[in-house]
């Protein structure tokens, strides 16, 4: 099967510090890939390289077998959409105007979105269940609603791959689940692929428990430490090594959901020293 995205041995450095050291990653159609790693391990930098926003100093990235470095922003945007971690809200745009912005890569420099784009944007809002808020200023939405609007904007881009940077950061339990359930529903309905940076190992298990093709890549010290299916990779040893903490992976059987796996953090193992 041809990969949607193939990252081949990329390195990235800021003057004086190496951020990524020969990182490789690939994403296949219909797959969720979760990127896990401690703060400052280079997750966001890796996503920026994949978005074409930063240029790696070594290695290559292929989108659908095309060399990313030779692609324009418009070509990249048609292939992958981005849901940012912190979207800074500046002007109180209406929700529908925000989602319409996802159509930019299909419009010429002087064009403005037309009726067809409006229809696509409305459908995207419907898919995340936010149609009722389309005429509200998005600055008035709650954190979870705002994040769903960002997902809708990414959907309006009609790209086969969506890159999400910690989409559930700062959200409460319910909103976190709403985002995860929306992602699962979208993948099942549309065959979309998702690359998601997250701090919560249980997200990976959540997707696997829901029967989605899931892989996880652990990023530590500028390198990929391990990659594979959650059940194989998110082991107590690997998590211990990744975060310097002691964890338990528990199996439990729920009547309605069958067998599910979860990580439970127990304690730090290096006396709270930050590394």
């Amino acid at each position, binding site marked *: 099967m041809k990969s949607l995205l193939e990252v081949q041995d990329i390195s990235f450095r800021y003057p004086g510090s190496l951020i990524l050291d020969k990182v490789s990653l690939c994403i296949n159609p219909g797959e969720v890939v979760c990127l896990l790693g401690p703060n400052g391990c280079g997750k966001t930098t890796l996503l*920026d390289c994949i*978005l*074409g*926003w930063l240029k790696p100093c070594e290695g290559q990235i292929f989108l659908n077998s095309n060399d990313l470095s030779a692609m*324009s*922003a*418009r070509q*990249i*945007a*048609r292939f*992958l*959409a*981005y849901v*940012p971690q912190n*979207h*800074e809200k*500046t*002007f*109180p*745009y*209406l929700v529908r*105007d925000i989602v319409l*912005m*996802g159509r*930019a*890569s299909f*419009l010429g*420099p*002087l*064009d*403005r*979105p037309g009726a067809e784009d409006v229809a696509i944007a409305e459908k995207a809002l419907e898919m995340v269940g936010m149609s009722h808020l389309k005429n509200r*200023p998005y*600055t*008035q939405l709650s954190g979870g609603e705002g994040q769903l609007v960002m997902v809708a*904007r990414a959907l309006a*881009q009609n790209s086969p791959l969506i*890159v999400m940077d910690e989409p559930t950061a700062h959200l409460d339990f319910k909103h976190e689940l709403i985002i995860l359930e929306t992602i699962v529903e979208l993948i099942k309905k549309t065959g979309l692929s998702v690359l998601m940076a997250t701090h919560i190992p249980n997200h990976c298990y959540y997707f696997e428990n829901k029967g989605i093709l899931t892989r996880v890549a652990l990023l530590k010290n500028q390198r990929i430490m391990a990659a594979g299916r959650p059940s194989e990779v998110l082991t107590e040893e690997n998590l211990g090594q990744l975060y310097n903490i002691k964890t338990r992976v528990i199996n439990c059987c729920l009547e309605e959901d069958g067998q599910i796996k979860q990580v439970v953090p127990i304690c730090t193992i290096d006396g709270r020293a930050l590394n």
Partner: protein
Amino acid sequence: MRITKKAWLFLLFILVPLLIMLLSLLVGRYPVDINTALHVLWCRITMQPCQVADFYQTVVWDIRMPRIILGALVGGCLAISGAAFQGLFRNPLVSSGILGVSSGAGFGAALAIILFNQVAATYTFAFAFGVLAVVLSYLIGKVYNTTPTIMLVLGGVIVSSVFSALISLLKYLADPLNELPAIVFWLMGSLASARYRDILIAGIPMLIGTLGLIAVRWRINILSMGDREAHSLGINTTINKGLVIACATLATAGAVCVSGIIGWVGLVIPHIGRMLVGNDNKILIPVSFSLGASFLIIVDDLGRILTGAEIPLGILTALVGGPFFVYLLKKTKGGGW
């Protein structure tokens, strides 16, 4: 339903400035009645001989008309550039002068007043230094081949303050009897010297800039999402930012070089637009032009009517606009901020 509402808005924001322009022909020290004014306009436009007294023809066609047209263009340009810059810099507190165009133009004008004391030289210098100031700000903000927004703003602040200092220096050196008052008056802004020739010369950059901004207006929405998001939405941020800056600079420099420094319009008129029609730049950009044009003509009318001597525009814009802005703020509850 949607179409009709759009058509209404469209008509409203075109007709209102035109109506205000027409009414402005009538007011001033020598009142003109509407029939006379219309008659003069009709004769001049169709190039027919006119039965109206020469005096009225001169007042309506040669004095008031160019001043009104120029006022509309200047107000519109300042407001539209302000709206574009607010979007581009993702900051509602930014005005059309953020990249130093006003201070640069002020310095150019002061320099020309001291060196040549000729109107044409003043225009040219004001325009050239206004553009130069923006180019300098852009070069300062350009780090690692990209132009992060905050660096551009910082560049603008630095260039503005340097040119402000240079203006003070020139004021200090200027002859206090002739040159200093000319510089001070120029810096306060005025349309009093407007002639058709000014419209022809300064109108070219103003028109190019305005049309450019209207053409790319929807993309300003996307640029206002920030560089990384705009990139991920499929926009080449460097090219598009450069284009918006170039257009807004042409429009502002064209306006400032004939009118002097008129504050307030480029900052607050876009906000009045935001309260009336929302933040979508697709609508906001043209509406800002319309509002800026109407506002500056009205303020200039007041400047002509209120006292025997003309009150400089830069003073009146804030005095008239401030209370109006507060009124709108209360009325619309701020529009969703």
